[in-house]
């Protein structure tokens, strides 16, 4: 029979909706509303995982986010496999497949469990002390074995097909946690008319009320009250209620990140739905109502399957109708475990004893005894037995001198424990609020706030339900008021049947066993025991941060939710210091592990970064172009014809341009319209070139430096009118040049009347270059006299092309007669097609960026960012002629005069001709005087550009070489793996030195 541990009635599961699922291949059933953990327990399965280091059998310890043991991999298919999920949070669905992890060959028989036997050696930090000899064994033997043993689940091997979404949201009041405190807070905020977001990580709102059958609020059962409040909130259009939504990060200025899990609980998720959504919430005010987490007791062998938190067992019973066992011993330092014992007892579970660590017991001791349960006070657990599940508990009484006298062995199939409650401070602490330590209750609590938030309920240390509700309501009201809304004032709630969970213990419990031998676990997943922590302290790790890192306590996937306070108390004891003097480790995001995909959300593929295409892109693609990425742009790289290699295509394109004409899409170049009465003055200052005297209708090649004197960008500038310049920049430099210019205008030269407008995308730019360029465009152009006299090299004219208005530049980046036609972008494709037809008719072809690079290199024209690298001055780049030396100031003038920039011996741009013309140098290759440089020889330069020049029938290269211009004719060497390549230093202009072709 399945579900033998399911009670015949009770709980919030849907009994009419059975759900079949598999765990480690075994077919099991549960009900809709079950978590994997509750369904496994219903089937009597406690053994769910193995621990990280010792591979000890582990069961379900908790009922929530803090679970360190019961980690599983849930798979829908090969690609949709998610490791390391906590069974306590996984909701089962029909057909779910879950697997245990970190065990081989099976969960029950795990070979690595020998680690447990070796645990006397495998203490904290043992690996720092060994595996050092023989030295080379580290990489070949030790490390691979350590790695293979470490790790928990397996990452999926296929790309994740699921989608993730994101949402920015704003509200007056964000309430984190929908237990009684959070619900009351949301209610108060709603009543004020505030915009409210309420989130809870669980499938259902209600928090602790869901597990409590006894309480009444305002005369209703707690569950009914919460149902009504949730309904009221859900009906308000000002409230957004988010279940299965974890607040995982709290950032500056009340910016809170929530992870909403949308489809993981569904058997067949709708295809249109994202799997998860990242909410980025900017809240005016935040109410933190995240409750408290129960703490384990640290006693010998406290980790066997079947040992679980008392409140978790109560939750399983009341919320899921599941008994954790049939014979359940309870060990506690806190009243809340009595509630569990009483509820179990009432449900027919045998409770052999409650072992209360407190000498006098607590508020419910008498009630338990009255119910017929044996209660031992001043008692403690000294050990447990059972291989894959707890079978018995040994206990003793603590004597006046602190020693423990062994008492008896209690057979059982489950053991509940409670060390008290730890307020969930993660959100508060992440907000950089300061914690304070409350001595009497041994708790850290929220202290001074850093953000606009307040905590309410158990996370604020308030445990009595009435007070929790009042405090929650007050927090919501207070938050709404602080957000600027009118509120109705405070409210008190009438509560009955609630027990305040008082009592707690911190640190390891005393026992009568050999302390050097027993294992009393503090951090369950990482197998950190009380003696590990003491060892760390003994070895000089006195800061709690050191203890954490040396023992790895608190570093497991639960991030110390159950272990941190006990570890701290043990460390404090070993250091003989009060707890606050030792301090807590830092709470960091995320509160619980959070899917990478939710951070990346829609940024994948084409949405990873915008793909910017020019207006001729589709044409080029149809023409077979290969594209390259330049910044966000796609640029046509070359246009291979059928069967043509890149090399052949580029050669052909280059030859065609030199012999006839080529057409090139230059649209991606940055363009800025500089307008205003002071435009010329501004240009004069921002560029190294003089600009005041540039005539309207003329262009100039401009070089721009930063104030440090190094080349920043370049481009051709045309003067369109006295008060208007058309500036071009490099493709990649466009945004930063605009920002650089705005910076000087807005903050340095605020008196100048000049305005900038980016026109990069206004214009499609079609470069037509080659001896037949004029012939190619002439028939299409109207209103511009293209003759040499009327439109000289480096001029700009306004006219139309095929009726479309254009700005026509006569300029050249190839050394040939050339024009650049700027037309409004939407006409780009049509004009391109028309010009292309002319070009083809004249024997020309389109060319891409690669041919463009070759052509310009043949002419010795630099590419900023390729031939320069941010350490090069205009003079060194061979464009010193551009610097307006008589200008009183320009950006970079003073920087260029710094001592080191004036030193001889700096690099200069030169050409390199390989002695063997067939050899093409590699860009980035180094240059040395010697053919056979000794290792660590100083390189005197490097190759910045290198190509095969089809027109010259040889290779060409540009290089930055120390004192390069004084070395013309010298033979240098480019050492390569296969031997050095001899090169001659030459002028960087390889082709048409006289420049006759520019202006035929």
């Amino acid at each position, binding site marked *: 029979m399945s579900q033998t541990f399911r009670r015949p009635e009770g709980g919030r599961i849907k009994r009419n909706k059975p759900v079949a699922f598999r765990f480690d291949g075994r077919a099991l059933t549960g009900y809709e509303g079950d978590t994997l953990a509750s369904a496994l327990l219903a089937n009597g399965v406690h053994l769910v995982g193995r621990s990280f280091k010792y591979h000890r059998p582990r069961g379900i310890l908790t009922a929530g986010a803090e679970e360190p043991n019961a980690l599983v991999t849930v798979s829908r298919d090969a690609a949709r496999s998610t490791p*390391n999920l906590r069974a306590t949070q996984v909701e089962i669905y029909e057909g779910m497949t879950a697997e245990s992890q970190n065990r081989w060959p099976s969960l029950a028989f795990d070979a690595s469990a020998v680690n447990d036997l070796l645990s006397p050696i495998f203490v904290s930090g043992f690996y720092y002390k060994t595996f*050092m*000899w023989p030295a080379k064994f580290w990489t070949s033997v030790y490390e691979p074995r350590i790695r293979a043993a*470490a790790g928990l689940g397996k990452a999926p091997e296929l790309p994740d097909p699921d989608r993730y979404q994101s949402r920015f949201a704003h509200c007056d009041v964000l309430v984190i946690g929908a237990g009684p405190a959070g619900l009351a807070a949301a209610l108060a905020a709603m009543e004020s008319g505030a915009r409210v977001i309420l989130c809870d990580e669980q499938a259902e709102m209600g928090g602790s009320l869901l597990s409590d059958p006894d309480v009444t609020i305002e005369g209703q059962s707690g569950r009914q009250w919460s149902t009504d409040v949730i309904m009221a909130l859900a009906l308000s259009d000002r409230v957004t209620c988010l279940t299965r939504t974890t607040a995982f990060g709290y950032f500056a200025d009340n910016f809170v990140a929530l992870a909403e899990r949308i489809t993981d609980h569904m058997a067949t998720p709708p295809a249109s739905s994202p799997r998860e959504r990242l909410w980025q919430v900017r809240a005016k005010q935040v109410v933190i109502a995240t409750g408290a987490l129960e703490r384990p007791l640290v006693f010998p062998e406290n980790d066997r399957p079947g040992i679980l938190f008392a409140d978790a067992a109560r939750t399983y019973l009341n919320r899921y109708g599941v008994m954790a066992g049939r014979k359940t011993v309870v060990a506690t330092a806190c009243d809340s475990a009595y509630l569990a014992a009483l509820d179990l007892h009432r449900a027919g579970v045998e409770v052999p004893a409650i072992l209360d660590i407190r000498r006098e017991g607590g508020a419910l001791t008498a009630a338990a005894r009255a119910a017929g349960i044996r209660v031992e006070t001043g008692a403690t657990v000294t050990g447990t037995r059972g291989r894959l599940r707890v079978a018995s508990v040994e206990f003793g009484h603590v004597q006046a001198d602190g020693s423990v006298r062994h008492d008896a062995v209690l057979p059982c199939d489950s053991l509940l424990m409670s060390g008290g409650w730890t307020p969930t401070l993660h959100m508060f602490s992440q907000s950089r609020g300061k914690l304070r330590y409350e001595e009497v209750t041994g708790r850290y609590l929220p202290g001074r706030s850093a953000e606009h938030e307040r905590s309410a309920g158990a996370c604020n240390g308030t445990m009595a339900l009435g007070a929790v509700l009042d405090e929650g309501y007050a927090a919501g009201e207070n938050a709404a008021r602080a957000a600027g809304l009118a509120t109705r004032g405070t409210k008190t709630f009438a509560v009955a049947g609630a027990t305040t969970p008082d009592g707690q213990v911190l640190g390891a419990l005393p026992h009568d066993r050999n302390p050097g031998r027993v294992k009393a676990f503090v951090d369950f997943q990482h197998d950190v025991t009380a003696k590990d922590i003491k060892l760390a302290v003994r070895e000089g790790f006195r800061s709690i941060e050191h203890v954490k890192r040396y023992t790895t306590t608190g570093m497991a996937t639960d991030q110390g939710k159950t272990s941190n306070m006990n570890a701290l108390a043990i460390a404090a004891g070993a250091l003989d210091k009060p707890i606050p003097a030792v301090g807590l480790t830092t709470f960091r995001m995320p509160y619980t592990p959070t899917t990478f995909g939710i*951070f990346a959300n829609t940024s994948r593929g084409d949405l*990873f970064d915008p793909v910017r295409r020019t207006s001729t892109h589709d044409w080029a693609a149809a023409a077979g172009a290969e594209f390259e990425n330049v910044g966000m742009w796609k640029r046509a790289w070359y246009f291979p014809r059928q069967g043509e290699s890149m090399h052949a295509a580029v050669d052909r394109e280059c030859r065609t341009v030199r012999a006839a004409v080529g057409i090139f899409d230059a649209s991606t170049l940055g363009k800025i319209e500089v307008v205003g009465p002071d435009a010329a003055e501004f240009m004069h200052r921002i560029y190294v070139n003089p600009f005041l005297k540039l005539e309207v209708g003329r262009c100039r090649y401009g070089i721009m430096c930063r104030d440090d004197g190094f080349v920043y960008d370049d481009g051709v500038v045309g003067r369109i009118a006295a008060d208007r310049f058309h500036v071009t920049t490099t493709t990649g430099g466009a945004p930063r040049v605009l920002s650089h210019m705005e910076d000087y205008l807005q903050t340095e030269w605020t008196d100048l009347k000049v305005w900038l407008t980016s026109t990069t995308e206004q214009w499609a730019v079609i470069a037509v270059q080659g001896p037949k360029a004029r012939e190619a465009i002439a028939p299409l152009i109207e209103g511009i006299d293209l003759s040499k006299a009327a439109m000289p090299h480096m001029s700009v004219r306004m006219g139309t092309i095929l009726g479309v208005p254009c700005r026509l530049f006569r300029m050249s980046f190839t050394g040939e007669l050339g024009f650049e036609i700027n037309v409004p972008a939407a006409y780009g494709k049509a004009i391109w097609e028309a010009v292309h037809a002319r070009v083809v008719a004249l024997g020309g072809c389109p060319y891409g960026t690669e041919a463009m690079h070759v052509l310009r290199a043949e002419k010795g024209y630099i590419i900023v960012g390729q031939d320069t690298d*941010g350490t090069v001055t205009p003079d060194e780049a061979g464009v010193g002629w551009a610097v307006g030396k008589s200008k009183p100031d320009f950006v970079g003038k003073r*920087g260029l005069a710094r001592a080191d920039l004036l030193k001889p011996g700096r690099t200069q741009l030169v050409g390199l001709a390989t002695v063997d013309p067939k050899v093409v140098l590699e860009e980035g290759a180094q240059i040395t005087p010697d053919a056979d440089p000794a*290792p660590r020889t100083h390189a005197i330069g490097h190759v910045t550009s290198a190509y095969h020049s089809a027109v010259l029938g040889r290779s060409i290269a540009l290089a930055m070489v120390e004192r390069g211009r004084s070395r013309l004719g010298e033979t240098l060497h480019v050492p390569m793996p296969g031997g050095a390549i001899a090169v001659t230093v030459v002028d960087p202009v390889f082709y048409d030195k006289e420049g006759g072709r520019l202006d035929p």
Partner: protein
Amino acid sequence: MRFSFASLLRNAFSAHTGWPEQWRSPEPKAAYDVIIVGAGGHGLATAYYLAAEHGITNVAVVERGWLGGGNTGRNTTIIRSNYLWEESEALYDHALDLWQDLSQVLNYNVMYSPRGVMMLAHTVHDVQVSKRHVHANRLAGIQNEWLSPEEAKAFCPPLNISRDIRYPVMGAALQRKGGVARHDAVAWGYARAASALGVDIIQNCEVTAIRRGPDGAVTGIETTKGPIGAKKIGVVAAGHTSVVMGMAGLRMPLESYPLQALVSEPLKPVFPCVVMSNTIHAYISQSDKGDLVIGAGTDQYVSYSQTGGLHITTHTLDAICELFPMFRRVRMLRNWGGIVDVTPDRSPILAKTPVKGLFVNCGWGTGGFKATPGSGHVFAHTIARDEPHPKNAPFTLERFRDGRLIDEAAAAAVAH
């Protein structure tokens, strides 16, 4: 007590009660020959080499928090030496040499794992820059090789080399000797070895002032544990260097930015090497424990907050998911931040200062973990001899005045 398998075994029989403190935690003496400010890896290594190689053992390392708790304890531990400029190559390769047997020298397993560091190129420009590094490194005798996308995939099987992604991988530079190490162990190993040689490591002791004599030379420091005299002071305070140097009236060419990193939940081995992509900003490796260790970019503003913005994290993870799409379902376990001290040329400063007796070692920014042994080694030399070691001679403060920058940033915008 020497660490070895034998001593481990021996101690197992005495329930490990016999281990001594790995380092002493003494109260400060009245004065020391040398005070090192900052017990990060660099400061501790400096102290160790002062004692081990220069016989200067009357040394204190003062630390405002816990040793190794600065960037040393927060970094993604990428180790490589394939930098561009000769000055950097020499310095980082010196460190790489020292990494090779550091565990044995310190008698502390720092888990230096030369699993290879692969730096991806996504654009033609990236390819040019990467190849420039490869060639420069080869000439300098530093191993660095160029891989095709297929070779890169063979070296790192999870890598997505599809041509269809937004920025396809066009190749990669691989330094096989590069890798990772266990960051905490580096700090602890140096601390233990230095302490054994007599160095006092004084934690929870914040320097609040630097005292100077009538001739302007340093005479000591004020701390939260009182004044301590010193003949020489070496400041190795990473993100806080500006603050400490300000106490001696010096302004520094530094800005401190938050830099974030994160780890995933532990996974069985899936990622065999280190992969860096500067173009799309992602750095990833898998630790011995099984977590994916991922580095992000810096925030845009100066901050000492040791946290950073969510948008930085989202950007990092979208890059990781694009390159390794099977990791989309993997989950982040923890995210944190450090404070990195960035110089204008992204190269460190390891130098004497205009103040007599005051030395500074800073500016390692986003990439100084790899240099820890080398940095400590040459800085100890600089302090002991009052003159720089040849390897750190170029890394002066004056280079910013003269304009002789060692501009790793300009050349490549490389982070770690």
